[in-house]
């Protein structure tokens, strides 16, 4: 017992060593004259962040006071909408592509030829199509999530064990029943892999599109704060994005652990 807790302690200390070192270097480097407009110290970042979260808006000339929560909400809502749409279309389409030769022949060439275009390259087109409005951002987020979801789901549907399909047919399952009683659950682990990767890309997409295509959200603040030289807000914003990405990923992992109990047991 003592050994185990000692081991945990050792691991915690070792794990914090390098991050702590980075913080110290940051603090020292940030304190040097001439670094003020480039790298504010961790303390200054915390201070700016605190005001950004808890300050009362409308006081003085600081446009960021108290706007953190609403900006996090803007970005999260966009990610949620675009990502939900991507899952809603990507999962069924992926299943059908993996399952039906016809659907594969119809859709796979299009998806495979559009996929190499980075989502950032879609930005001007997206703005031209939707204007400086939410839809432009949501379209980009959708696209980013969609590829990962559809490709992984297709793979999962294609890799269903042949004998499971045979067993279901032997017991009298129709093709439709085969799809949602065998292919869907068997593809579930791959679907979740796709959802996790897709969600990560969705966060990238929301930041990029908010920098250009809309006037609110963490991405907008990030670029705006840079322009007015508020590097403390820039850094606090970056950390905020990281935290949101991490939390949303944890949410999917949590749902996965509930849905895929059989899979969790298998890997132990």
């Amino acid at each position, binding site marked *: 017992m003592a050994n185990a807790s000692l081991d945990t302690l050792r691991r915690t200390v070792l794990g914090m060593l390098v991050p702590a070192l980075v913080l110290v270097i940051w603090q020292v480097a940030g304190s040097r004259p001439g670094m003020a407009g480039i790298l504010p110290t961790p303390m200054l970042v915390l201070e700016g962040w605190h005001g950004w979260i808890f300050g009362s808006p409308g006081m003085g000339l600081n446009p960021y006071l108290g706007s953190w929560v609403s900006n996090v909400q803007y970005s999260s809502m966009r990610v949620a909408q675009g990502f939900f749409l991507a899952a809603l279309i990507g999962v069924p389409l992926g299943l059908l592509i993996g399952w039906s030769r016809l659907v594969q022949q119809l859709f796979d060439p299009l998806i495979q030829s559009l996929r190499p275009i980075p989502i950032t390259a879609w930005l001007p087109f997206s703005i031209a199509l939707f204007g400086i409005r939410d839809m432009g951002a949501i379209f980009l987020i959708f696209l980013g999530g969609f590829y990962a979801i559809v490709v992984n789901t297709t793979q999962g549907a294609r890799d269903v064990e042949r004998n499971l399909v045979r067993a279901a047919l032997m*017991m009298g399952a129709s093709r439709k029943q085969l799809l949602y009683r065998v292919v869907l659950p068997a593809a579930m682990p791959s679907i979740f892999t796709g959802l996790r990767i897709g969600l990560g890309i969705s966060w990238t997409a929301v930041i990029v599109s908010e920098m250009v295509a809309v006037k609110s959200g963490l991405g907008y603040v990030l670029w705006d704060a840079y322009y007015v030289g508020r590097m403390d807000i820039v850094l606090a914003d970056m950390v905020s994005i990281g935290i949101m990405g991490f939390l949303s990923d944890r949410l999917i992992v949590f749902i996965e652990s509930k849905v895929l109990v*059989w899979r969790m047991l298998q890997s132990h």
Partner: protein
Amino acid sequence: MSHISIDKLYKTYPGATPVKALEDINLQVAPGELVALLGPSGCGKSTLLNLIAGFEQPSQGQLLVDAQAVRAPGPDRGVVFQEAALFPWLTVWENVIFGPKVQGMARSEYEDRAHEMIKIVGLSDFKNHLPVQLSGGMRQRVGIARILTLGSRVLLMDEPFGALDAQTRLTMQELLLTVWQKLKPTIIFVTHDIDEAIFLASSIYVMSARPGRIQTKITVPLARPRTVADTASETFASLKLDILNLIRH
């Protein structure tokens, strides 16, 4: 009238060098008969089973079950797979009632039967377990309960006990004999294990490889019901020697 009737059956896999998996197979199985297909790996015994199951189509020849040509898999021919092939996301109970459920039967129609079959294979205490929580032998018990619940009159078994340890295998063989005595389904049992074939079957079809053919039909002279003691009898030993000589020839 025979339950399964196979006449001049051929199966060739096309390709640059076509593979003759089965050649001129003739086989008649009576209702309630337990026959074994015995042979080395690659002799086409699993292919033959897949054709009867309807998973694959013959290249040539006739294959009748209940005087009907086999076109597709169906609940009248239950298959027990080598690795059980249970749905890992379903519990034992859900796996066993999968067939009746997808066929749209009412719960009252299959519930009693499913409970009974789970009891016969000795898994009453494990209905809510997932397959991953079961041993290999228990998974095969679920595989058997599932096709018994299905009400299949033909059971097609593809080396179902091949992956089990010797002791569990024997228990499963005894279980299969008990089930067979009780319900009298027609069983085609594929194996490469000579002892298993003799212990279980009334007739053994010995197959040879490349191309896969039926070499000989052997009638097992052991009386039923059979017990483990039979495996130590002189009849058993001499029959085993005969088959060994035949396979090596």
